[in-house]
């Protein structure tokens, strides 16, 4: 079986997401689909999976023209799409999930025997060691992933699309998924492997296709490229960006982490940040940088080993409230879920950290609150008509500034910003970068967590890179460019330590100099 698409175009509103993309894959082949966030990978796969209609272009199976108006049509043609957030129902058993949504019946009842037997025999053929009667809930992430792949086979899929199947897996779990993929390859199944992790691509894939800004940049056999080349295809530049950011003079060390581990998301992380410094911590999504600093802020209690030192004294915040008292501030990612209080006004949102500080006798002092907030409105250039309106009436950029203001009012020593420009338009992005630089120059230690290399380059003095929960390197000055960061973040230093001119040294954590 051969699946090929030609000249696929798709636009949302004014922007072209895909512009005449060609792609093909044959049975028994694993093809990597690479590209930065927003390059159009997921859109292309959504079109093949029948989730989105293409504006132009054709899809052929074995040379025959087909169209997929619905996901069901695509599945009928033998294409299975395994989404990043798995589609298994946690509270059902494995065998039930295997047959969802079309259960076989025997009279009015489900034919349990048949489902269990079929599942078991498929699992045996695949060498998959999972009890069909187990509840999905009890499986760990890699088994869920393999069950989902098996489910695709149960539906007789000949092409399986996997959207970042290893994003949330540990190294051992990844091996399990890879083992399964090798078996499928021998059975003549075609697999499209979407991933950011270049070492994985080098290991498992036969061919690669790189998309950038909705166009095909390069494709070919994996054996003919190096991870470095792949990284530069993805970024589209060989030269590093001229940095607009000039590192300011730093003061004394403020925050220091020593051998911090939580057992799952991050391992043995040590770092330090100084007053007035903007430290970037980057890595692909799910590589542990959010979890690391969430833990430092006490979000999950003090369930970690290692030490956190603030101004040389050990702290161990067990809740955000304790972390705030220590002088930490934390702007979480996913503003809507984690930061915005939708039923409160702009001013209440902007002062939510310090609400108990405004009082006149037993009562809340609205005037004091307003005065303090007004200062932030000026400093951060928050645009609004009335601070008593609901926060939800503001644009994303202004909302984010209000979220920032709640922390700045508290006067923190260390400000942790997780994905600070998420859901913020381009103009406001630049304003936020300027704010970050101003804050650093006022003596606050700022830590910026971001998966966007350009963002790190724009605001940070130096940046640490995480891969699978470990710090794998540090970039600063000359080496702070997208390529080297992408290389480290994709585990490049781990896959071919010797091939890159000895720049990646395991002893010092692969620092690029």
């Amino acid at each position, binding site marked *: 079986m051969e699946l090929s698409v030609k000249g696929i175009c798709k636009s949302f509103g004014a922007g072209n997401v895909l512009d005449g993309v060609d792609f093909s894959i044959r049975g028994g082949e694993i093809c990597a689909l690479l590209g930065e966030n927003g390059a159009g990978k997921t859109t292309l796969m959504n079109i093949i999976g029948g989730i989105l209609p293409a504006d132009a272009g054709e899809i052929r199976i074995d040379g025959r023209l087909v169209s997929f108006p619905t996901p069901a049509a695509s599945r009928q043609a033998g294409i299975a799409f395994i989404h990043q957030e798995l589609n298994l129902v946690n509270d059902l058993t494995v065998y039930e999930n295997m047959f969802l949504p079309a259960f076989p019946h025997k009279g009015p009842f489900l034919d349990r025997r048949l489902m269990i037997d079929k599942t078991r025999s498929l699992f045996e053929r695949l060498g998959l060691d999972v009890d069909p009667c187990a509840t999905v809930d009890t499986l760990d992430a890699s088994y869920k992933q393999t069950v989902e792949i098996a489910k695709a086979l149960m539906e007789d899929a000949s092409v399986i699309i996997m959207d970042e199947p290893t994003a949330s897996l540990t190294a051992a779990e990844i091996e399990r998924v890879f083992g399964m993929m090798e078996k499928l390859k021998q059975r003549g199944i075609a697999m499209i492997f979407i991933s950011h992790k270049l070492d994985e691509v080098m290991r498992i894939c036969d061919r690669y296709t790189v998309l950038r800004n909705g166009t095909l940049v390069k494709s070919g056999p994996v054996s003919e490229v190096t991870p470095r080349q792949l990284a530069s295809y993805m970024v589209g530049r060989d030269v590093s960006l001229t940095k607009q950011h000039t590192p300011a003079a730093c003061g004394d060390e403020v925050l220091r982490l020593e051998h911090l581990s939580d057992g799952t998301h991050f391992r043995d992380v040590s770092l330090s940040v100084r007053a007035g410094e903007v430290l970037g911590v980057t890595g692909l999504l799910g590589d542990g940088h959010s979890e690391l600093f969430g833990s430092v802020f006490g979000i999950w209690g003090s369930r970690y080993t290692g030490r956190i030192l603030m101004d040389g004294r050990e702290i161990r915040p067990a*809740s*955000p*409230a304790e972390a705030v008292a220590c002088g930490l501030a934390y702007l979480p990612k996913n503003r809507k879920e984690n930061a915005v*209080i939708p039923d409160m006004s702009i001013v209440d949102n902007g002062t939510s*950290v310090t609400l108990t500080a405004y*009082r006149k006798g037993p009562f809340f002092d609205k005037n004091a609150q307003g005065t303090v907030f007004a200062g932030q409105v000026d400093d951060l250039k928050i645009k609004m008509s009335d601070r008593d309106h609901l926060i939800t009436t503001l644009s994303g950029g202004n909302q984010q500034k209000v979220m920032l203001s709640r922390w700045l009012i508290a006067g923190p020593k260390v400000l942790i910003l997780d994905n600070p420009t998420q859901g913020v338009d381009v103009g406001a992005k630049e304003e936020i970068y300027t704010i970050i630089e101003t804050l650093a120059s006022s003596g606050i230690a700022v830590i910026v967590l971001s998966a966007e290399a350009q963002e790190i380059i724009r605001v940070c003095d130096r940046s640490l890179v995480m891969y699978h929960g470990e710090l794998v390197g540090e970039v600063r000055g000359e080496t702070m460019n997208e390529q080297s960061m992408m290389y480290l973040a994709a585990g490049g230093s781990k896959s071919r330590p010797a091939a890159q001119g000895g720049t990646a040294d395991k002893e010092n954590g692969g620092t690029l100099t």
Partner: protein
Amino acid sequence: MNQPEKAPKRPALTEKLRGLYDRLFRRGPGLTATLLALLLMIVLQCVVIGINEGSFAGLFPKLWRSWMNILRNNAYTGIIALGMCFVIVSGGIDLSVGSMTCAIGAALMYLLDPAAGLLAAVGISGVPAYLIAILAAILIGFAFGELNGVLITYGKIPPFIVTLGTMKIFRSVTQQLTKHFNPEIPAGFKQFASAKIGGQVILPILYWILIVVVMYLLFTRTAFGKQVVAVGSNERAARYSGMNVNAVKRRVYAISGVMCAVAAVIYVARIGSMDFANAGSGYEMESIAAVVVGGTAMSGGKGSLVGAFLGMLIIGVMNNVLNMLGVPTFLCDAVRGAIIIVAVLVQRRDKAGD
């Protein structure tokens, strides 16, 4: 014509009233619909009274008497509804209020009984005894509420389950302990609620209004009130803002417990006795209904104490009208249920049109 110079003058009375109206009824969830519903009920009430009396002259004295009754009879649930409003705005629910009121009432009687009471046994009587008993009742209410709060926050059990459980526990333990207990309430203590002022028993009404004011200030004019809204609106954002979410929740249930204690004190002082099997049962549903009719969202974050007060009045007037109309007792609940649903439906519409 020459316009007179614009002079900085004091805001006109109409503007002041408008400001007050905005503050009380338009902030948070709009209460315009609730106010209209109340007015509608009152108009209906006037019509029914007018028809019953057969003359316009008889309308006002009858209306006055009706309202006195409505306010008096709903003071207990009205006060409980204020605590319930805090709980619901924080994103929770308290089903134990009825049983809690009953249990606190029983405790109060144990303390006060002139023959077998605890305070009489240690030789305290008269006003000091009454004050000690009231203080004790409030402390017990606080402790019961804290118990709910601790189970909910540290036990990480959903509020519905915890308070459903404590609702059963409070009631059953109270019944067991009071099996052979026929308390008597000292006449002096009854004066706390039953003393006539201007020929009317209005103390329960005054307490209710006083507590409405206190709770309103607590809700709108303190940092705590804002924290309750934050916790109910987005608990995670509240936590990440460094708020002690567990402490806020515990306090909210403690307030609910204290409100039950106040209601129990007024109940015992006014009625002078308590049927431990039934006293307070149904208070939870009645107070939740008042809160919801008053425009507070069950999902938390949005709420109004003035609304809870108005909601209670609406339910009170409604009961009064049903009574006057002679609707068969069994059908009354159907009408009540329907009106609660309609009230919320109207508010939905009102909000969608915003």
